[in-house]
């Protein structure tokens, strides 16, 4: 169970909250404006009042201890920068995602310690461009992976002592055993680049490899369960 803290309730965070898988994530929503909290409560989101400027308050909600991911979704870029800086000081390993309004704020947020920047306008522009260029693929992803249909993207880490250890990629046959498509493999220790499965059929899996898979959530759950089961063998 991962803990996600979301700061700032607005249209964007509302969309995000709605789409996060609540089975494997616990979401906490905070805001410092009473009006926003009321709006969130109207929509059935349990938001609470917290002053992001105070380190004590941040510690109290679990930053530096229980919170794994922080989503800075406040309205002003300067507020997000401040929150990012404070949170990074409290926790070196926290995953911080921030949205920006003005593109100039991107550098500042990265310097303040954010892991990922989300620029809504840039994303929207890119999306429209995708629609112009490849309407079929864009439609497909909108309706499946990003949409309400049950086709999801997932990442599965190969643990120590798993049946996956030392298995050739070509032997995995996820598409027949699980109805999953293996897209690629990433090893964070080596690089962030994804190794593309079809090109590396001879590759053997090592602990720490992350498998990027696509499929229905039931199959993903089944696969994850089997991977973590030391005695399972397929």
């Amino acid at each position, binding site marked *: 169970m991962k803990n996600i803290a979301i700061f700032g309730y607005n249209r964007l965070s509302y969309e995000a909250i709605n789409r996060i898988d609540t089975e494997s994530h616990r979401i906490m929503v905070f805001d410092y404006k009473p009006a926003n909290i009321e709006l969130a409560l109207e929509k059935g989101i349990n938001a609470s009042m917290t002053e992001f400027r105070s380190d004590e308050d941040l510690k109290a909600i679990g930053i530096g201890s229980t919170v794994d991911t922080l989503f800075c979704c406040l309205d002003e870029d300067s507020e997000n920068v401040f929150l990012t800086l404070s949170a990074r000081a409290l926790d070196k390993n926290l995953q911080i995602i921030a949205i920006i309004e003005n593109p100039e704020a991107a550098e500042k947020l990265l310097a303040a310690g954010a892991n990922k920047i989300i620029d809504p306008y840039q994303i929207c522009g890119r999306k429209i461009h995708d629609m112009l260029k490849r309407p079929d693929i864009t439609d*497909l992803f909108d309706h499946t992976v990003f949409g309400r249909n049950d086709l999801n993207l997932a990442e599965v880490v190969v643990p120590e002592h798993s049946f996956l250890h030392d298995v050739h990629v070509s032997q995995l046959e996820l598409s027949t055993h699980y109805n999953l498509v293996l897209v690629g493999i990433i090893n964070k220790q080596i690089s962030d680049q994804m190794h593309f499965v079809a090109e590396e059929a001879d590759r053997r899996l090592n602990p720490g490899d992350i498998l990027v898979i696509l499929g229905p959530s039931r199959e993903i759950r089944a696969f994850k369960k089997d991977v973590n089961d030391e005695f399972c063998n397929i």
Partner: protein
Amino acid sequence: MLSKLMVYIAYYLNSSDGYKKGKSFFYDLLENPHSRKKRIFDASMIVLIVLSILLLIYDIEHEDSVMGGYFELAILLVFILEYLLRGWIYSDAYKIIIEEYEKALYLNIPFKMTALLKRVVAKDLEYIASYFAVIDLLALLPSYRPLSILRVFIIFRLFKLFRYSTSAKLFADVLASKRYELLTLLVFTCFMVFIASISIYLFEYQADRSNIANLFDAFYWTVVTLATVGYGDIAPQTTGGRWVAIFLILVSLGILSFFTSILIAAFSEKMLAMRDSRTYAELDRYASFIIICGFGRVGQEIARHLQRQRQQFIVIDKAERNILLAKQLGYLAIQNDASKNEVLINAGICRKASDILCITGDDVVNVYITLTSRHLNKNIRIITRANRHENVSKLYQAGADNVILPFEVAGMLAAEFLGQPVAFEAISGILQEQRDIAMETVLVAENSPLDRRQVGQLDLRLRKLTLLGVISANTLHLKHKNKYKVKHRHFYFNPEQHFVLQQGDMLVVLGRKYGIEHFRSQMEQPRLLPKVRT
């Protein structure tokens, strides 16, 4: 009998393709402002006119040369031909005949030749009396050598030059647009000239050392002074005359500055339109392009991507700041209101535009532009941005093909990233083609080797491609499981080995760009059919 023949000919012409083609060819050549032919024709006519004028001037100073005579004759023939052709395309006589004839049939009255001829001749006279036609006709005259007085009409040949360049027309338009102000000024100036001429005449006539001997001298002096030229050949000698001069000089300064300011104002108004028309002319050269309405953050991002891929586009925005930015970036841009029919038509929505993006920050404006575009062009693809959820259905209703909510898209991505950051980065990298790995579709075309083949038989692994699924509208596939509805089609995820492909299906494959390209080129060549089938 004659009238019957005419009606017959008119109907024959009306149904004749060759006649219409010929007419439209000459229309393109002579009148159509969007055609290339006209541009070439105009340029060659300008060259011809300049040559003919040089020749005429040479002839004035030298003996008439024989070669020059032939050349002049050739030019004359071209001019006459042009004059007649313009008259021909000016109106459609056969249409008038048919109209009159059908009217007569309908009302059950005899078909009268006289009324018909009157209408046809009236139309022709209308052409002959038109401004440029008169100049064309007068420009023919200096070719007649025996009467050297006709050489004065060379002037009209010079005027004819204006016909072929747009700058002269622009100047005339500018003057015409300020007709009222200019007329007022002219009337005032006339009064001033009249008063000043009379006064200087009264003071200076027969005065000592005065040069003003008659009313014309007084008039000449007034105009020269009023225009602030002041040659000095005539100067007032009496005190009264000098007072008139002082008064006239002060007033003339006012008149001149007023005149200049009218012209400048008119030009600066026209300048915008002129720049726009240049932009439109540039657009005309592209085979297809995209219209972007709204150049905010989203528009800038799209433009950047399109520019990188050498896709042609035009930006329309109301805000001067945005247009300045677009121009600085080297994009084609027009500062205007995209919700006006005229603006969109000028931008080519009915001609070569393939898509239109309505992405202003205001949903009301977006709905309006969407509606206007759909009304103007039934087939264009409209992608619209909605800023509020409740407006999405309105935009679809207005005729949008796709509606995008910036906050929804960003929220969606944020959620994906919060859930599985590593996988998400990988897949978005592929979708955005940051590396040379791409996800693309391959169509099962008619006669393609893929048609009616089983998925298991495709040697995709050898080709280093991963098959994600098949997009299809074919009902034959509906029995398969793992199907997801995507608009009017289905996406069959991870199809089984015995999934049989049908014509019109699309394979969604993941692989290196050149790998996919190679696969596609092989599958789209029916010649390889027997080889692959074995």
